[in-house]
């Protein structure tokens, strides 16, 4: 048998360039990768404006070859609102962590969702403040250790984990709310489909879409990448059930 050619099984990625600064096995890189794949597939690279947050993913625009703006902590929805209203032909995405979206920026996301702004939100829930060294986030699990809850999160002191999809599901305006994860290949495929759906909703001018992605932070959780994904699968999904909350 003579081998005459080598055919790549996957097309060379255009949007995602890799070589990130993320820790080995961090879900941010996986999410950038599938976001890049979706943008490539929809052929919208030149139309996307990505509002990157404050947090580990503050340099997302270095790894995704799209236009964008870096927003102040939690304020990405305000910027996205302005951009989309001024340039409705653009595809506007925000990419936000849980410290960003669910703590300092809760009011921003709540009102943007309530107004039914026509942009798509990618919400990365890794249950801690990653960039600043692993402090408790509103999404930290009960009993989970972090630098600010060294003996584990206590309800009496810090309340309960905040469920953003469920919270936004009480509003009238959002058209699509889904929680996905990245803990194995099947979930990665689901997450990719969810991102595609959220962006397609925007292209079709349906309304506000949010995809919550359960992710990991091996460094601050002090786990190996493999262990961290097992924690997401076995512990996080108990508190944050996966699934579609709304699809209109």
């Amino acid at each position, binding site marked *: 048998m003579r081998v*005459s050619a*080598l055919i*790549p099984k996957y097309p060379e*990625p255009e949007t995602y360039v890799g070589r990130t600064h993320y820790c080995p096995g961090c879900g941010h890189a996986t999410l950038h990768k599938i976001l890049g794949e979706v943008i490539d*597939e929809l052929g919208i690279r030149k139309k996307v404006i990505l509002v990157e947050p404050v947090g580990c993913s503050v340099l997302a625009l270095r790894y995704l070859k799209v236009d964008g703006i870096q927003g102040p902590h939690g304020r990405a929805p305000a910027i996205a609102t302005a951009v989309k209203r001024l340039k409705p032909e653009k595809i506007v995405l925000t990419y936000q962590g849980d410290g960003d979206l669910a703590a300092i920026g809760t009011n921003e996301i709540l009102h943007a969702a309530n107004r039914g702004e026509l942009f798509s939100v990618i919400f990365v829930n890794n249950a801690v403040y990653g960039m600043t060294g692993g402090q408790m986030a509103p999404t930290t699990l009960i009993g989970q250790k972090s630098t600010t809850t060294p003996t584990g999160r206590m309800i009496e002191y810090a309340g309960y984990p905040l469920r953003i999809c469920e919270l936004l599901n009480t509003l009238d305006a959002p058209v699509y709310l889904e929680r996905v994860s990245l803990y194995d290949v099947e979930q990665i495929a689901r997450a990719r489909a969810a991102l595609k759906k959220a962006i397609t909703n925007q292209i079709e001018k349906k309304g506000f879409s949010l995809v919550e992605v359960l992710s990991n932070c091996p460094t601050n959780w002090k786990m190996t990448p493999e262990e961290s994904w097992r924690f997401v699968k076995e512990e996080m999904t108990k508190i944050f059930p996966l699934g579609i909350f709304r699809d209109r």
Partner: protein
Amino acid sequence: MPQRRIHLVRPLRFQVKVLEDRCKGCQLCVNVCPRHLLKPSNRTNEKGYLVIEWKNTKTMGCIGCGLCYEICPEQALRIYAEVE
């Protein structure tokens, strides 16, 4: 996503190339490969990460399933189909 896959010719075998400058040695691909073809090497790249090595075997070799590609956060793996 069917348009991402190539099915025009019947591949003989598959080859996986590791882009060592991208690999971070997270070992997620090691655990996902059904044929256990990816293993940590004893080399580090310029960033100091222990890179992964792909070694095919004659029997029970790579089936081109793409699981390693799908799980790799850095897109450090490239899968090629060998065709006649």
